[in-house]
């Protein structure tokens, strides 16, 4: 097989682009669900959601919840996640689809404009951002599997997906297939490395799984 050329920096940023995009997508989906519940079913739905991310979120009402989820000072801040995705996209721009790049710029601008102009947040923003990320994944998919380097994005996406699935106790058999795909990608990307053990797909501990995957990625990407 022809050697895939990509610097460690670009590989890492492709991986993190995948992770941050998927993180934003999964989070927005769950925020949208929690928002709906907070209105008139369960005021604490947002608190429960963020507990899964080990974050203690405080809010006064449903709109305030959206504001805190997107702009609040915590590690799952959506604005920051999209900012990080944009930064990675700029660094590895030459490796991603140009349409996808444009959508990533737009995604970040969407949140930044609201923050800058002090505009009100509502469900439309969440829906719009969610659709935009779906479009980004669609555009990225145009190139997917064309190059080995595209697998770094895919791997980031799957790692994040596995993380969410484990945090939300989703169907284990499906989670196992996600992890199997991560393993397959790790094998392809590390075809010259001998010490890439299979991930324990039965592992149900998120921290352990992510630590294991990260150690594999560190094996693949040599700075």
């Amino acid at each position: 097989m022809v050697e895939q050329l990509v610097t460690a920096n670009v590989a890492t940023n492709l991986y993190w682009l995948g992770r941050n995009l998927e993180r934003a997508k999964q989070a927005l989906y769950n925020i949208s669900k929690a928002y709906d519940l907070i209105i008139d079913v369960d005021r604490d739905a947002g608190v429960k959601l963020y507990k899964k991310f080990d974050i203690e979120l405080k809010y006064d009402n449903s709109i305030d919840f959206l504001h805190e989820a997107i702009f609040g000072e915590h590690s799952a801040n959506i604005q920051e996640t999209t900012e990080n995705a944009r930064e990675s996209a700029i660094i590895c721009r030459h490796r991603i689809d140009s349409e996808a790049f444009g959508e990533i710029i737009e995604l970040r601008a969407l949140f930044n404009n609201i923050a800058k102009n002090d505009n009100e947040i509502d469900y439309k923003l969440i829906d719009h951002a969610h659709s935009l990320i779906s479009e980004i994944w669609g555009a990225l998919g145009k190139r997917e599997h064309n190059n080995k380097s595209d697998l770094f994005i895919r791997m980031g996406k799957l790692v994040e997906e596995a993380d969410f699935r484990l945090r939300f106790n989703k169907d284990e058999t499906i989670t196992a297939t996600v992890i199997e795909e991560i393993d397959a990608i790790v094998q392809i990307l590390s075809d010259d490395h001998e010490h890439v053990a299979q991930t324990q797909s039965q592992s149900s501990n998120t921290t352990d799984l992510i630590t294991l995957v990260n150690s594999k990625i560190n094996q693949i990407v040599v700075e």
Partner: protein
Amino acid sequence: MLEKNTGLHEKFWEIFNNQDRHKIDEFKAYMDKFAVNFNLYKDGNFIEQSLPFDIVPRIISKKEFSKIDKGLQQRVKALNLFLEDLYTDAKIVKEGIIPETFVKEAGGYLEKFVGFSPSQKIRAHINGIDLVKDSANDEWVILEDNLRVPSGASYPLSIRDTYRKIYPDFFETLKIEPIKNYPSYIAESMNYVNTGGINVVLTPGRFNSAYYEHSYLAEKSDAQLVRPHELKVVDKKVYFKNYNGKLIRVGSIYRRTDDDFLDPKFFNPDSLIGVPGLVEAYLAGNVALMNAIGNGVADDKGIYYFVPKMIKYYLGEEPILKNAPTYLPYFEEDRKYVFENMEKLVIKDVAEAGGYGVLFGHEMTALQIEDLKTIIKANPRRFIAQELIEFYDEKCYLNKELQNRKADFRAYVVMAEDVKVWQCGLTRYALEEGNYLVNSSQGGGFKDTWVMEL
């Protein structure tokens, strides 16, 4: 002053006037979305900003461009021969065509490289030649040669891409020269001088003002984009550090870093954006650098004065494109003329670029002129003086109305086995009406350039 409208302009306006004006907003949104950025540092802060652009293209007829094309090919061939000669036999100096001291005092002249000849004897691979069209005689005039690291080619590529998407009518109806071949010119040049290995574009990194362009050109020319520490020199050979730790041999480097910062072992030891050992590998003939080290001497505004002489000396031809009338205070006769006519001349500091160090005599007070004369007397090599060229304005659609702005034109000339002139270029317009400085660093914007025929 605007250039006289031609049938080509009329054709453009005929289509443009029938377009929905909302499309202009769509155009701007598209450009913003694709982040055609120009990064800069202001007051110590990193600012990422969109480069201003205008939707109305500059139109040059194919016939007119054909003369520019021939003139630029001739000029770049002569400049390349000059550089190769200067750093090897130095006949042009020995025969007194250019004074030796004048050359040696040029900031970009690097004595340490005398005797070295690069791959295929090509030094001026990628060149940006700045021209204006003189309204006095309708002729294109060369203002400046950029043979070190000329930037800006990705901007017309981006705006053209946007144009074709938003306004396909123009490109379906009019005979506009396509421009997508520019990255292939770069690839061709890299391949031609390649000493064995992959091609890479060397960028100082994400926060460089032209990072967008580095990334764009790497992608389109199928080269790897690398930062300095992603290259490694072993036994005078350059290697690309792959993500998996493997070292892949590099044969050609399109570097977007000035000479001074290229290799901390050879040039500035404090450079954080250099590749240690790169110059040794280059001098051993193990890697090609585009453009060659030491080209700064040909960029020197004082050396520019001698380019018409180089054309005659090396090619035995008359220059097809003329320089702006230029005087060197270094020569006594010229100095006398300059001092007597300061009010109508433009004085340029040869060491400056980007529109800095340019003084317009008509804007200076008598006291300032006297001060400048004293400075020139003390160091005449540092300055050149040029007649002020009243170059044409271009129509720009700014703030929802058509306004006139002075505009220059940077042509891109790429050298491989042959010299090729890109059938496009960067038209830059000034920020304010009447301003002659069009540089991006002076707040100027850019527009597309269409080479067209009826």
